[in-house]
């Protein structure tokens, strides 16, 4: 039913997908597929890399949850405690895990579910629901179609702000936009040059001043220059800062104000970059950055590792901030739009498959008798 069925359908489509990209292109060249099929194909292309990136973390998660199901056959306190642990090991926020297991407990009681296998579908459903529950903030980038769009990039140290700007600049340049970059990290050694390298790679202008200069002044210059040169999108890099540092956080609001002096409705988008490896502290980061800069979206970086970044479920649930992109590597094209369904589906895909084969097996067993 519902979400679970949608997952299954997706899985089917996926299975029908030819193995190699060339094969798919051949299929396209035949001219035999319908528009619908084409769109489906296009969608699969998009989610392909994303799925690949998630696969590793997914595998681990699957193992855990399958092990869980086989170890605990009956729904009791031990089972819920173990389930909590599985979710916590994916860095899903602590309160969210509690919320989820609490609801599952109720559901189990209500429907008189005693076998863990019967609870499996509900777990998936609830996780998607928790992500989608709090507000319907758009997971698309806000682009000002007639005029300059200013995007401010914020986050703690080393999460991937500058790299993500490089990737975004590449994406929008490819889509035909005129992109410019502002080197607002005047603090960290070599940060300006790092952004310049990305600018060169993508072939866009970088507005910069000397290391150590006032970042607000850089932004002021950059927004003016972007306006004058008729840029479509300006990506503003900022220095990493820990969210508990009052003075550095104030600097951010100053930067925002300065940008607004030139373009009153800017920044059109404030993207908080979170490292998927980060644990519970990401929630504190999201809270603090939201307070000073009114964060409109999250980029979840480094999902190509084994970390799962499950904390984004908690962040969406508690603060209503949606994830807009995920980072899957260090190259220009290692950025993908975030899709909640794909994400949760990705986490649970193998588990669903497992349950299918299990059901089939059970059917067979029955037939044998």
């Amino acid at each position, binding site marked *: 039913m519902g979400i679970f069925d949608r997952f299954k359908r997706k899985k089917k489509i996926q299975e029908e997908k030819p193995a190699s990209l060339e094969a798919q292109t051949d299929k396209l060249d035949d001219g035999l597929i319908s528009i619908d099929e084409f769109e489906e194909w296009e969608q699969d292309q998009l989610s392909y890399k994303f799925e690949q990136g998630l696969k590793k973390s997914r595998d681990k998660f699957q193992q855990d949850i399958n092990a869980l199901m086989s170890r605990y056959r009956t729904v009791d306190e031990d089972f819920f405690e173990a389930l909590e*642990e599985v979710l916590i090991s*994916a*860095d899903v926020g602590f309160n969210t895990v509690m919320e989820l297991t609490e609801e599952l407990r109720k559901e189990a009681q209500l429907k008189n579910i005693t076998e863990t296998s019967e609870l499996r579908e509900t777990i998936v459903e609830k996780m998607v629901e928790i992500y989608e529950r709090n507000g319907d903030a758009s997971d698309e980038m806000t682009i000002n179609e007639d005029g300059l769009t200013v995007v401010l990039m914020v986050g703690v*140290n080393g999460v991937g702000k500058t790299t993500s700007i490089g990737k975004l600049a590449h994406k929008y340049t490819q889509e035909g936009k005129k992109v410019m970059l502002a080197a607002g990290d005047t603090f960290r*050694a070599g940060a300006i040059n790092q952004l310049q390298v990305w600018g060169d790679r993508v072939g866009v202008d970088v507005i910069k001043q000397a290391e150590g200069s006032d970042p607000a002044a850089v932004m002021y210059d950059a927004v003016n220059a972007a306006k004058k040169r008729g840029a479509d999108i300006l990506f503003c890099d900022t220095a990493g800062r*820990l969210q508990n540092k009052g003075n550095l956080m104030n600097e951010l609001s100053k930067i925002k104000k300065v940008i607004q002096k030139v373009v009153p409705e800017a920044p059109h988008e404030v993207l908080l970059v979170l*490292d998927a490896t*980060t644990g519970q502290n990401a929630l504190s980061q999201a809270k603090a950055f939201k307070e000073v800069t009114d964060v409109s979206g999250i980029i979840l970086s*480094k999902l190509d590792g084994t*970390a799962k970044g499950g904390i984004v479920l908690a962040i969406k649930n508690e603060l209503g901030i949606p994830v807009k992109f995920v980072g899957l590597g260090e190259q220009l094209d290692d950025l993908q739009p975030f899709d909640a369904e794909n994400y949760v589906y990705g986490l649970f895909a193998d588990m669903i498959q497992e349950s299918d084969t299990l059901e089939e097996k059970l059917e067979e067993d029955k037939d044998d008798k």
Partner: protein
Amino acid sequence: MAFEGLGERLQSTMDRIKGKGKVTESDVKLMMREVRLALLEADVNFKVVKQFVNDVKERALGSDVMTSLTPGQQVIKIVQEELTSLMGGENQKINLSQKPPTVIMMVGLQGAGKTTTAGKLALHLRKKHNKRPLLVAGDIYRPAAIDQLETVGKQIDVPVFSLGDQVKPEEIATKALEHAKEEHLDTVIIDTAGRLHIDEALMNELKNVKDIADPDEIMLVVDSMTGQDAVNVAESFNELLNITGVTLTKLDGDTRGGAALSIRSVTQKPIKFIGVSEKMDGLEAFHPERMASRILGMGDVLSIIEKAQDNVNEDEQKALEKKLKDSSFTLDDFLSQMDQVKTMGPLDDLLKMMPGANKIKGLDKMQFSGKEIDHVQAIIRSMTLDEREHPEKLNASRKKRIAKGSGRSLQEINRLLKQFNDMKKMMKQMTSGKKKGKNPFGGMGLPF
């Protein structure tokens, strides 16, 4: 900090027990649930938590927790002791080779803080160990990584060896060692590119560099905000490279830092340093017992005191510590503290490290600029010595006099008195119970 500490967590269980006047085995079980949750919230890996809680529970059941009048404190004492010993008990120093050069290799995930820590270590070794370090630019992948290290080198006046980004790290390491020999530099610190522990090609590259450079110290640098994945990262790097030490970075943030425990449990390797600032002097020795109280959400009082110590003469410091302990801290002490604070750097950073500091309303909004301190000092200076010791004597007319004398408003005076009061309350809280136990942390910051 965002989450409750173990002290607060145990409070409700304690309230329940109080009514009964007797501790049962199931009470202990309930307390263990709180211990478990506190550690999970601190990002300690769940498997590590499980093992840990089992150990603690056994100890708790076999000890005097159940007959104690303060079972909550007993549990905390046990938890803290176990945590401390798990994390190595004592601080461990960096490996230095008897015959030069000492080779140190920095490894870790992307963005962990390797380059920054390399610089910090170079400065530390030169200052505290009289070494002549060489920084080696071994990150040929990340844009401007070499540039970053060169800037760092300039900042601390340490030479940087680089062959650009077209030469393999293995060769860079070889040449760097030769260079160090020629230049009589006795410590070689090799920066490497950040990499995922599952990236086989790049992990092999590290292994090759290790084989060539034969480092005395392979320092795994880990971001203290790391969540459950810390065990996978630490395990992989350790398995391949047999690391010799760990540095935890960004502990100037508000993370509990449970990763410390996770890393230690899976590698058994000592955490040697912590990074506490973006600046080059932001490197400190790792102290297991302090980390233990931080993970448990009980603040890091000793670090605050140590930070102060760097700037304050020792006798004064002893006196201050005593005053903090018996809460005889007066406005006059506050006044002389301010002078020292002025030389110490941002006070709000310091205050935020204190347990319970997050509960003082408005502290986060308070700005401790030099000017503010001047104003506060002016106010206190306009008080008589007796008033400084007994601020409760300050009635309306006395306050008016002080306002005139200091040129500050009545509101400012009231605000200062209120804040001072809050601060004293907090200090009382964080040091209460201290006289009772032998354990320096017994009952610290606990409301019971």
